């Protein structure tokens, strides 16, 4: 009760914010201090409850829409007031080019997606569903040697499972999911408390590089095939984070 560490360094230690010297000093103190040992245990259990209990509240889709409308309103008049009328023809031509290019690109995406056994909508649905309380993992473990065998006998294939905690993508666990009417393995990683689902299923198609990112309803995904497996990583993290994880798995 009188221990000063309990009210100070213990928290820096718990949060990984002490430098090496102070962390070592605290660990030495911890060996002899029951109060700190008790408090640390209590704080750790409280932290894991907070993180498991689904207290994080995601922004509703309606809000995303309202914000986009607000951004439109704050951007469009700026263009209108600065561009002389004749330039609208240039703008119109540009829009036409951009839209035909994106139509073309969209068609290509659709084609490559149709060769994958699920659609973007199914993918986002599966991701959003997994974020509902209690749906994220069937096996919750940061240990790849626990998660991988768990899939044994539950699926007709064994997904490659690796933890990337050292690279900033700790493994959270795994679960069985259904995508496009097919049973798939879902590996769950976290990135600064954001969740990344990596869906894995077998394929007979040849390997591909990591495809360009897809974006829908504020969620991004990256898709690729490698060594007889089809992968799709989806999340609300930034694309650079998502790409980093995709590369780690791809190696």
């Amino acid at each position, binding site marked *: 009760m009188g221990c000063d560490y309990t*009210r*100070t360094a213990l928290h820096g230690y718990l949060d990984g914010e002490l430098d090496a010297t102070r962390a070592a000093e605290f660990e030495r103190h911890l060996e002899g201090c029951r109060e700190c040992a008790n408090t640390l245990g209590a704080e*750790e259990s409280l*932290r894991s*409850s907070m993180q498991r209990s689904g207290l994080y*509240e995601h922004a509703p889709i309606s809000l995303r829409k309202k914000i986009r409308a607000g951004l439109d309103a704050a951007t469009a008049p700026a263009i209108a007031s600065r561009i002389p009328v004749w330039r609208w023809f240039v703008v119109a031509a540009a829009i036409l080019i951009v839209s035909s290019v994106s139509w073309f690109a969209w068609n290509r995406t659709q084609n490559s997606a149709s060769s994958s056994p699920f659609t973007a909508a199914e993918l986002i649905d599966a991701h959003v569903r997994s974020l509902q309380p209690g749906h994220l993992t069937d096996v919750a473990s940061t240990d790849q040697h626990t998660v991988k065998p768990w899939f044994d006998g539950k699926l007709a294939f064994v997904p490659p499972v690796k933890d990337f905690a050292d690279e900033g993508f700790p493994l959270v666990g795994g679960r069985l999911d259904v995508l496009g009417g097919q049973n798939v393995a879902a590996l769950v990683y976290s990135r600064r408390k954001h969740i990344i689902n990596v869906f894995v299923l077998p394929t007979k198609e040849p390997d591909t590089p990591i495809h360009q990112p897809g974006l829908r309803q504020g969620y991004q995904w990256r898709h690729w095939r490698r060594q007889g497996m089809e992968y799709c990583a989806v999340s609300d993290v*930034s694309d650079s984070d998502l790409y980093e994880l995709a590369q780690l798995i791809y190696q």
Partner: protein
Amino acid sequence: MSGSDQGRGSDLLDVQDRARFEQLVLPHLDAAFNLARWLLRSRADSEDVAQEAMLRAYRFFRGFHGGDARAWLLQIVRNTCYTWLEKNRPVELMTEFDEELHPQPSASPEALAIASDNRDRLNRALETLPPRFREVLVLRELEGCSYKEIAAITSIPIGTVMSALARARQRLQRALTLSPAQEASRGL
């Protein structure tokens, strides 16, 4: 972050600003909403305030010169929330952050595990904390912010983030292990 009219006139935002904003700031909308929701304790009000904060961020976007976009946005969200609270629920802000707490024995890990296993109870306990305790916990435990980020967002000196968290955690433990009757008698 001065008047709300900053960004008018020659500073109009163009499509390039918009694209950069969509890439750097908009991905943190969940973080913005989550912080607002925990500061205001209401989803409906948080939608309004998060929207307002996001549009303010957009107006100030020319003033953002790289760095941690999430912390930059959350700082604006927090300010918008406090302005809203001052206007709509000033009583909530009257609790003192530096209230002297008598050191209390920690609850046993087992008792705490049982109490915190109930999501509603955890939710309620967190909501009973004063906003300045609540926000450091939400930023640390739900948002995963570093001490440096928490200091930037909440404008408290980095040296005091650790003790702020220590006090907030102690308050949360106490709120969690109070019996429902005790909770009621505290007039919550």
